[in-house]
């Protein structure tokens, strides 16, 4: 068994039996098929076939329900047959049973008998049944089982005729058409079973006919018993499903079973047999053969590069393997999903010989295989080419290999119905696709491969540095040495350099969310007169931030730094932060980017912020010991989980330090802020400073805590300015100290000494506060949630809105059934109407699609206006309030 798991099929390399049966029925003239089972089988199979053949595929189902499953599906099938005849007027109906029908033991021949008795008017419709339980094989077996059912159930005409029976397996319609052309060319009379060359690959007709008009006719099939010979193009068909064997045993029609005519040998064998049967070998055929020979030679060297894994139905795999092998393309693996006992012995000589020629050490032939096994073999056998149906696309995608699509299904490309694999021309086209895939593969990779293999440079390290569109690179390209430029940027950064008067910075408040809670912090919006971190009067979108930057830059030529400092954490809002920086960088390639962060997300985003061109980062690190951190941080929200206590502090501190180190190593100038908290970390700060210095911090900024009303540390005694200065002096021996910090707002603008942020605040504020006027509450009866589309009396829920007539604001959804407000206990027996009324008794109006008279009167008594309408909810609510 070709599977990695014994009890599990992982990515099936097969489909089910009924799929094959209905495909075979598609090759019969004016035939419809019905699957006896539950509805899904026909739908899935239709979907699979429709996407492969790009033709309408109509397959009925007896749509068995629970009842049919328990008491038998006879009634369903009888009705199904009748309906199918009414809708399509077929001359033939193929019934294929599914797993379900077979398991519950449906006696289809008896049902068919009953149908004819009930409907003598439909006796002309030939009903053929195939027993095709889904678990009893694959689509391959199903196909032949249906063919066998057809030849054994159609009444045969006795008496000999001059025809040859040609029975085929799962060919493409285009290949089927080829066989017909070939036999006509050779002037042989034939019966082709099945013939889906038109039904599954039709043209565009002025009038579409939903009943398949072409295909093998019942009349032709009835002549098969009298034919002089049968050729069955299948190596592996099981004896009990073989039409050829049946015709031989029952009617004495001699037969031969040939491999698919894929490749020279397969086609030669078919031709030889046809000539033997009196066929004319024309010049056209000979020329096709000689062209194939010529092409074999033309591409043999490229073919030798191929190590193919071929998968699919047994006959297809065998034919393809032979084609590969005779062209020197080594088929290192042959897999089929079918259980096929003779598969290995039949293929072994081909694979062995091919492998031996090219000194390929191993090859694998396995039946009952799945694609998980195929993946394993791709690695094991260094496969460079996949040949089979579209189900191999995942393996192809995973390993970046070309997949030559052939056989069934091909649902991710067009033209599945036109794929050619047989005859000299068909084989050649198939071979060309393989060799071209190999050539393309080599053309696309050989420069890189050779370069990697042979080219050695003087300074490998310099050359190996990955290309990155970093800020530093932009600078370097502008002719300035990167280090010098960075120093210049640092010198112009008001927070990293002494004296706050010369250069201006702007803090863009695009980052509202925070992912940690510091006990000294309470973030709020709109305190225009307060100045401290975490405060902003507004939140900007990246586009608004860009607009603001442009305005300020025009007014302030000394604006050198764009900082993102909250009001939350710049990295807890990474999408907004990165988009803002990207937009500004497009506008201004020179301005310095600075971020301030608590560091929690630094390990995740450090690489990206460097790519964005951030050169300066401030990290607030208040402790390096989790036990101390736990006193400062109430909680952190990290990767979807809220942590508290030392666990929280541990993660946070670890990430801060990792992030700092990464940034420092990659050349980012890092400032570390430390908030000095009396009795909490004041004796620990020296340790913090030493640690961050060791990890590469450029400067530290030890700050006083600003007591914030409502925060946990609101009442904490403050360290004195003197204490802070002493600490800074002490730490100055390890690292540079920032002595001029102004603890800015998250929307600060200007120089440190002159914040002018108030000038640049959004002008859109007026609209927001103007709306305290005339708010009215409106209840909406809705089913869809988007429209007023529910009858009041039938409402199960109301959407509650408030509107001033201009802007509708959603309040909540109220479920009528469970609706119960306030402390009053809902009366279990309260009538539905009472609940309805109760649910909306605080509203001024109610909107519904329709309403009865009685509730309308009751609502009027409650002083609730009723409006019946059909409209979008928000529009209707505003209209209602305006009309009030």
């Amino acid at each position, binding site marked *: 068994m070709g599977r990695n798991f014994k009890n599990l099929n992982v990515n099936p390399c097969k489909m089910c039996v009924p799929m094959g049966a209905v495909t075979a029925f598609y090759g019969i003239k004016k035939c419809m098929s019905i699957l006896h089972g539950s*509805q899904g089988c026909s739908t*899935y199979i239709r979907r699979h076939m429709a996407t492969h053949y790009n033709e309408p595929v109509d397959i009925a189902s007896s749509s068995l329900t629970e009842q049919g499953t328990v008491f038998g599906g006879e009634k*369903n099938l009888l009705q*199904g047959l009748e*309906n199918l005849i009414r809708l399509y007027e077929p001359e033939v109906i193929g019934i294929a049973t599914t797993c379900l029908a077979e398991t519950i033991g449906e006696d289809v021949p008896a049902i068919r008998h009953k149908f004819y008795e009930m409907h003598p008017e439909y006796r002309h419709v030939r009903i053929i049944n195939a027993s095709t339980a889904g678990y009893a094989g694959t689509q391959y077996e199903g196909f032949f089982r249906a063919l066998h059912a057809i030849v054994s159930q159609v009444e045969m005409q006795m008496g000999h005729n001059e025809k040859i029976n040609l029975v085929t397996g799962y060919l493409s319609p285009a290949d089927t058409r080829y066989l017909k052309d070939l036999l006509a060319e050779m002037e042989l009379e034939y019966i082709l079973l099945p013939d889906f060359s038109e039904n599954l690959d039709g043209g565009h007709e002025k009038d579409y006919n939903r009943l398949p008009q072409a295909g093998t006719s019942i009349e032709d099939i009835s002549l098969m018993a009298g034919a002089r010979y049968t050729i069955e193009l299948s190596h592996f068909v099981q004896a009990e499903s073989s039409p050829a064997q049946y015709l031989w045993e029952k009617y004495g029609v001699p037969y031969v079973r040939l491999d698919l005519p894929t490749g020279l040998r397969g086609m030669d064998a078919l031709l030889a047999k046809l000539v033997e049967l009196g066929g004319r070998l024309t010049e056209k055929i000979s020329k096709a053969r000689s062209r194939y020979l010529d092409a074999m030679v033309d591409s043999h060297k490229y073919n030798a590069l191929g190590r193919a894994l071929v998968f699919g139905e047994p006959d297809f795999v065998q034919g393809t393997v032979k084609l590969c092998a005779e062209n020197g393309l080594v088929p290192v693996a042959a897999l089929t999903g079918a259980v096929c006992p003779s598969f290995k012995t039949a293929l072994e000589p081909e694979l062995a010989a091919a492998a031996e020629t090219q000194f390929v050490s191993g090859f694998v032939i396995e039946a009952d295989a799945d694609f998980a096994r195929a993946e394993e073999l791709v690695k094991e056998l260094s496969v460079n080419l996949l040949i089979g149906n579209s189900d191999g696309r995942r393996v192809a995608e995973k390993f970046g290999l070309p997949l030559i699509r052939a056989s069934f299904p091909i649902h991710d490309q067009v033209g599945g119905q036109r794929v050619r694999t047989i005859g000299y021309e068909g084989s050649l086209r198939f071979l060309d696709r393989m060799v071209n895939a190999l050539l393309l593969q080599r053309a696309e990779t050989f420069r890189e491969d050779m370069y990697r293999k042979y080219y050695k440079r003087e300074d490998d390290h310099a050359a190996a540095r990955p290309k990155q569109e970093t800020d530093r690179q932009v600078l370097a390209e502008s002719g300035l040495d990167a280090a010098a430029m960075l120093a210049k940027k640092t010198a112009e950064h008001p927070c990293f350099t002494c004296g706050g008067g010369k250069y201006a910075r702007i803090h863009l408040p695009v980052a509202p969310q925070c992912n940690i809670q510091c006990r000294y912090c309470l973030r709020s*919006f709109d305190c225009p007169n307060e100045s401290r971190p975490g405060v902003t009067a507004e939140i900007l979108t990246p586009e608004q931030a860009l607009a603001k930057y442009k305005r300020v830059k025009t007014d302030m030529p000394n604006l050198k730094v764009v900082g993102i400092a909250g009001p939350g954490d710049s990295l807890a809002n990474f999408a907004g932060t990165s988009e803002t920086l990207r937009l500004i960088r497009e506008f201004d390639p020179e301005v310095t980017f600075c971020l301030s962060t608590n560091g929690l997300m630094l390990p995740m985003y450090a690489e990206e912020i460097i790519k964005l061109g951030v050169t300066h980062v401030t990290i607030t690190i208040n402790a390096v010991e989790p036990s101390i951190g736990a006193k400062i941080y109430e909680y952190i929200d990290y990767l979807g989980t809220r942590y508290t206590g030392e666990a929280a502090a541990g993660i946070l501190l670890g990430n801060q330090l990792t992030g700092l180190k990464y940034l420092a190593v990659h050349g980012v100038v890092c400032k570390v802020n430390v908030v000095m908290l009396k009795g909490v970390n004041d004796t620990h700060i020296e340790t913090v400073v030493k640690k961050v210095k060791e990890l590469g911090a450029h400067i530290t900024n030890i700050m006083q805590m600003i007591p914030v009303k409502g925060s946990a540390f609101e009442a904490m005694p403050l360290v004195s300015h003197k204490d802070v200065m002493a600490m800074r002096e002490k730490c100055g021996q390890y690292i540079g100290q920032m002595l001029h910090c102004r603890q800015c707002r998250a929307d600060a603008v200007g120089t440190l000494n002159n914040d002018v942020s108030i000038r640049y605040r959004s002008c859109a504020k007026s609209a927001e506060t103007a709306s305290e006027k005339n708010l009215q509450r409106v209840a909406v009866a809705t089913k869809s*949630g988007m429209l007023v*589309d529910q009858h009041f009396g039938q409402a199960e829920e109301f959407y509650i809105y408030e509107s001033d007539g201009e802007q509708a604001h959603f309040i*909540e959804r109220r479920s009528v059934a469970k609706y119960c407000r306030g402390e009053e206990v809902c009366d279990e027996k309260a009538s539905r109407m009472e609940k309805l009324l109760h649910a909306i008794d605080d509203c001024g109006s109610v909107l519904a699609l329709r309403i009865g008279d009685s509730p309308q009167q009751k609502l009027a008594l409650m002083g609730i206006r009723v409006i019946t309408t059909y409209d*979008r909810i928000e529009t209707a609510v505003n209209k209602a309030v305006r009309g009030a």
Partner: protein
Amino acid sequence: MDTVLEERKASIFAQELGCGGDGSSIGCERASVSGAVSQRACVYCGARVVLNPITDAFHIVHGPIGCASYTWDIRGSLSSGSDLYRNSFSTDLREKDVIFGGAEKLQRAIEEIVQEKKAKLIFVYATCIVGVIGDDIEAVCRQAEEKFGIRVIPVKAPGFSGTKSQGYKLACDAMMRLIRPHYDEKLKKCGVNILGDFNLAGEMWIIKNYFHRIGIPIVSTFTGDASYETLIKAPRAAINIVQCAGSSAYLAKRMEEEFNIPFFKVSFFGVEDTTNSILRVADAVGDAAAVKKAACFTTEERRKAESFLEIYRPHLTGRRAAIYVGGGFKAISLIRQFAEMGIKTVVVGTQTGKQEDYTVIRSLVDADTVILDDANPAELERFMRETKADILVGGVKERPLAYKLGIAFCDHNHERKHALGGYEGVVNFTREINLSINSPVWKYLKEA
């Protein structure tokens, strides 16, 4: 040749047929008519559609191979993490298993998976045969959970046991089973769960971006781009919003009952729905800043979408559309989106629409529009021809029929590779309609 079977007439509203009365009710939510060539799928399909996007789950189909084979990686749900869900696992039952029972094989299969891979979450779908042979998959799953300490959740979805909607419900029950142990009434509730979006072509990402932008935290997504870790956080959300009500309103109701999480419905199809939904969510869970940002954002996006539509409208106005989709929600939103383009809906049908969906549909379309429940190809062919539809919106099974009839087509099913949600979706959808309806190819067919 009949085109409309007697048994089907109750499920069709068409003026000229005289069936369906005044259209106030239509035969729906009933079993398909045998032999009518229904376009419907099955219970298993419904359950699989909803659960499949859970990216890091092992989805094991317990049954013969067909069901696993036909549902393997055919859907457009995208993942930002694991790719596991793009594999197909099946116990691949054979004749012997059907006779002797498949429970043991399932048990061994689960063991193999647990031993070979790091499984956290396994869904076991029982298909038709298992429903008949009576494997006790409930017991197998329970034992596996106990033995390995992971979640193994049975989804008993034999195809014959109802329609696709029944499958949705089973999927919702399975998810409740997954997240229920993670509910703690003491949890502080915060943020939003998005229900009923499957991240087809990245639609869930589009919606999440909107909320990110206006500062509203998303807790879990059902089930687009979901994973075990994200799903189990769902009970902590403050509110659920439901996009595809057909599949997920039931889950929202259960979460409201059991976890006390209120929900409301939203829609991200079309400019107006998207705008109203964003504003509604901001009103319901955002602070003043979020409401303001939502207003600014939607105003801007609406303006952009409008000016985009202005360009395309002349190409589309006056054309006629046929709609045949899975559920009522999608049909309704499509009718309205077409109206925004100036396109009249002339045929509309669904596989699993409910009575109230059809009531809404009835009130949205003109009197001469044909409405069908559980239509078949013969009916679609007839009515698309008679109403002179220019384009069909449907699933891949309907596509070749439209083409044979010389009618343009737009994919609106789970296999699509273009995002149709949000403002981005408006642009994509409009382009899709234009590129097919105005393709030069139709002209040559007419000449021929």
